[in-house]
């Protein structure tokens, strides 16, 4: 069964906390990874690899550039 947006966001929030120390309370669809959550490009690489593993999806490198906000990432993962 496919995960809901809330479930994906929660999973993503766990990853962000683990690899980049992001406070889960700050994670919301409208938040920008770089501007709001202080996730720099190297940390983003770790987030992507962890998300691929957790959600069983492939996130190609040229797609990562389009994932600017938490909402972008949730939508991409939701599509599978």
């Amino acid at each position, binding site marked *: 069964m496919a995960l809901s947006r809330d479930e994906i966001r929660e999973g993503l929030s766990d990853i962000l906390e683990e690899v980049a120390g992001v406070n889960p309370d700050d994670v919301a669809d409208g938040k920008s990874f770089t501007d709001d959550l202080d996730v720099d490009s190297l940390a983003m690489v*770790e987030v992507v690899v962890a998300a691929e593993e957790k959600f069983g999806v492939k996130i190609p490198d040229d797609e990562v550039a389009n994932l600017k906000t938490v909402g972008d990432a949730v939508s991409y993962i939701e599509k599978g």
Partner: protein
Amino acid sequence: MTEVVVTGLGATTPLGGDVASTWEALVAGRSGVHQLTHEWARELPCRIAAELAVEPSEVLPRVRLRRLDRSEQIALVAAQQAWDDAGLSDDLDKERLGVVFGSGIGGALTLLAQDDILEESGARKVSPFTVPMLMPNGPAAVVGLEFGAQAGVHAPTSACATSAEAISWAADMIRAGRADVVVAGGAEAVIGGLPMAGFSSMKAMSTRNDDPEHASRPWDRDRDGFVMGEGSGALILERREHAEARGAKIYAVVAGSGLTSDGYDIVQPDPECRGGGRAMAAAIRQAGIDPKDIGHVNAHATSTPVGDMAEVKGIKREVGDHVVLTATKSMTGHLLGGAGAVESIAAILAIAEGVIPPTINLENPDPALDLDVAANEARKVELNAALNTAFGFGGHNAALLFTKA
């Protein structure tokens, strides 16, 4: 000539998580060497080492730890202590702030761990922080970033002479007018299967596995090699006028330093300690003092059969037969790239406190040892000047001469 003084000290060692606890253990003659209980150590010829007394995870935030090699973590811990000890603050002119911080081997544990990930899980799983974690200039870069140093961040690598060389470069940087304040030191954290197996294959390490606390025994007849330790030492070096203007406390003066190379062998020490002796002579010459005024040498003495006695010859020739020696590696183990800085701190505190820490385990002195050693018990003595020596594989020699503030 520009005078360079020491205004801050920091350390994390097998004896303590800071300078005060390390110094207390040194003076008390406590060993930091233990048996290794890790799975990876089970089949090694040497299964003893001096691991840190305080894990960096007790000091640094979790996410910070993830992105730093262990050597970088402890560099940061020691440097922050030294910075705070010196009473430095963020309003310092960063264009006049430098860093010289080295590591003998660098991020070897990161390299090995990430290679395991590459083999087992593929390239995509390799950490994006791998390169900044394993590069040998990592500790210097991390310390430089922490304090915003802009006068230059340098990373000498000369094996076990590394952090003594760093202090020498730092003093030169100030004398050359390139900086007012320099964070100097070194860090090493390579207690792991491959580095230990490599040193063991050279027959450089003690195999006194059933008696770890007595394994590091410089100048003792029954010494059989060094014991690996991990740790970091950091010193704040400062132009005297700059330190005085801000009312800083001054531990000691970096009166002279000498750097030479053996041109002899990649790993064997010159049995006459000619290169090491020339480093000592250069430090004494720069300081412009009479060798008779040097009351103490914190020697390199690693507990290896050849090196220990060669150094004694050099000290006798260049400093004289009046000095009191000690080898604090008998307690800390050999901190490799961190050794020179931690032992310089010990030499500086020996001057400041009037106490020379003991050389423990000196039960049966080598018959060729004909200099006075603070054997097994700390020695109270008034000191005006003390020398620290550090020699590294590759034939690198460093000598640092500290005088009373």
